[in-house]
């Protein structure tokens, strides 16, 4: 017992190699996860000072733009459970035009994160999605952390809110329920953007950091099960029978891919901004969990039980959709590709398992002294238990 606990706390090269072989992941994911393990066991994380961040940021932007720049009002930004985020105003030259006070967002990786991802992938995805939907414009990237001290990304700030001002919710927007008038405005846009993402053709040169599972095979399903199975093995604090049974079921029932899509990976309430008075969606955020694979995963993520809300005792998905049928209808009406209910059910089990791993594996491990918001991650981990109940109910229905 002590052996495995010690290995997770201070991974050896041999243990890392065994995990990589047992759970083959796409190259850029493998790189991010391996980097995480090699960093593990280092001293507790302390955020750098604003002065240090400002100085590094100045160097990063200056190296990638023309003329003098000025950074003002650098400050922390709340909202996410993953990256350390800052907002600031920038004076700079954009395409030959002098601009003053443009608001920007800096996203930095802390020493560990609930999701270990790759800023290059995020940069490529946001650039890809920009023509399809409102996405913050991405400007500069430090993908190896050589300037900022940690991998980082700078994008434009987009105005908007995650939830109505008079509605309460849990952390990271979970539990947000929208009143009917707002639902009527948001749902068609939300469905349209998701449908557009999934249908978007992926040209040969697009998204070079991503692997492309073959259509007509189960590679796409195996790829994501390996990704998250590896995360679980790397991060778990307690072995879990329900996780074991779920992984076994997912592998035995892996679906075949019928169309290769860009999958956002976290397309839920809390990860889009909107104008409260008009109901206009202003930005789709948090692209770091995206990958190329099966569109059903994005719909399944929304209908997982964790994101259930209630109105007059009636359950809703993500505070937006009255039922799975209502969501699928809206998606297909918005021009989405056809939805196969059996594949949707498989992806719901997968997405619920991913939430379980994020809660009781990744959040706890990262939040054990390695981030700027350990107490938030510790709090979030409690969500793993209702998720376990959701897994149990789904597996029971499927067996």
């Amino acid at each position, binding site marked *: 017992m002590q052996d495995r606990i010690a290995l997770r706390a201070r991974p050896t090269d041999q243990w890392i190699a065994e995990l990589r072989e047992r759970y083959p992941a796409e190259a850029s994911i493998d790189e991010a996860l391996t980097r995480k393990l090699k960093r593990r066991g280092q001293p507790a994380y302390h955020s750098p000072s604003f002065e240090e961040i400002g100085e590094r940021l100045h160097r990063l932007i200056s190296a990638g733009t023309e003329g003098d720049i000025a950074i003002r009002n650098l400050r922390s930004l709340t909202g996410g459970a993953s990256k350390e985020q800052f907002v600031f105003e920038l004076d700079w030259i954009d395409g030959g035009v002098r601009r003053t006070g443009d608001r920007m967002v800096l996203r930095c990786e802390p020493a560990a994160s609930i999701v270990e991802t790759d800023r290059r992938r995020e940069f490529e995805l946001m650039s890809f999605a920009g023509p399809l939907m409102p996405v913050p414009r991405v400007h500069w990237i430090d993908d190896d952390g050589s300037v900022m001290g940690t991998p980082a990304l700078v994008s434009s700030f987009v105005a908007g809110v995650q939830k109505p001002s008079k509605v309460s919710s849990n*952390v990271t927007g979970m539990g947000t329920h929208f009143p009917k008038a707002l639902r009527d405005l948001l749902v068609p846009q939300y469905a349209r953007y998701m449908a557009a993402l999934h249908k978007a053709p992926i040209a040969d040169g697009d998204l070079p950091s991503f692997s492309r599972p073959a259509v007509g095979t189960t590679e796409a399903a195996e790829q994501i099960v390996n990704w998250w199975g590896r995360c679980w093995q790397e991060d778990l604090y307690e*072995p879990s*029978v*329900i996780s074991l049974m779920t992984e076994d079921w997912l592998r035995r029932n892996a679906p075949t891919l019928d169309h290769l899509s860009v999958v956002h990976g976290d397309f839920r309430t809390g990860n889009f901004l909107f104008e409260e008075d008009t109901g206009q969606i202003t930005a789709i955020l948090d692209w770091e969990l995206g990958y190329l694979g099966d569109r059903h995963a994005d719909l399944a993520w929304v209908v997982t039980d964790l994101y259930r809300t209630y109105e007059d005792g009636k359950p809703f998905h993500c505070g937006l959709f009255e039922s799975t049928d209502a969501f699928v209808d809206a998606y297909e009406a918005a021009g989405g590709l056809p939805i196969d209910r059996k594949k949707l059910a498989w992806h719901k089990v997968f997405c619920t398992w991913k939430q379980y791993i994020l809660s009781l594996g990744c959040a706890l491990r990262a939040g054990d002294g390695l981030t700027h918001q350990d107490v938030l991650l510790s709090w979030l981990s409690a969500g793993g238990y*209702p998720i*376990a*109940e*959701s897994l*149990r109910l789904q597996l029971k229905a499927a*067996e």
Partner: protein
Amino acid sequence: MQPSFDLRIRTMNKALAEVVLPAIDPDNKAAAEQLQLVIGSLNLMQEQIDYANWYEIADGRSMVAMAEKVAELAGQPLSKELDDAVAVTKDVGTRHNVTLSQIRDANYALRETLCDAISKVLSTVDAETARAISRAVIDLTEDQTSRERAFVAKTGFDVFPDTLKSIRESLEAAPAG
């Protein structure tokens, strides 16, 4: 023993809510959010702390019941390591001179060997037996899941209100030793 855990947690919460929170710069949303979470976490611990020992004993008994059921369905002992872990969990569950962390360690070892044993047996028995084991294991996890949900219900993440029990109710439903 005074001051009790309960009193100490209440006084910490009062200080944080009534003295520290109003002193935070309203523009520092990150600090305010984290302080609210600290207060929430202390409230959660205040509710959990009285049941912590009972929880671990119940957890161990549930896993012992699962190990015995899987062995019965497989028609064979699962592994010597599992038998040893079951014996330790049963032992610490009946002693008075044992710390909470000793019970947790015993449960951890049992959970790990149980997962290893289930994984192995599912890959070695015939398909029908594997299906029967899977069904039984999934059914038996209900008891554990119910307990875990009850323990963290105050975080507000639970979405199955019809089956959410109080901590006491969930512990009373655990298998007898």
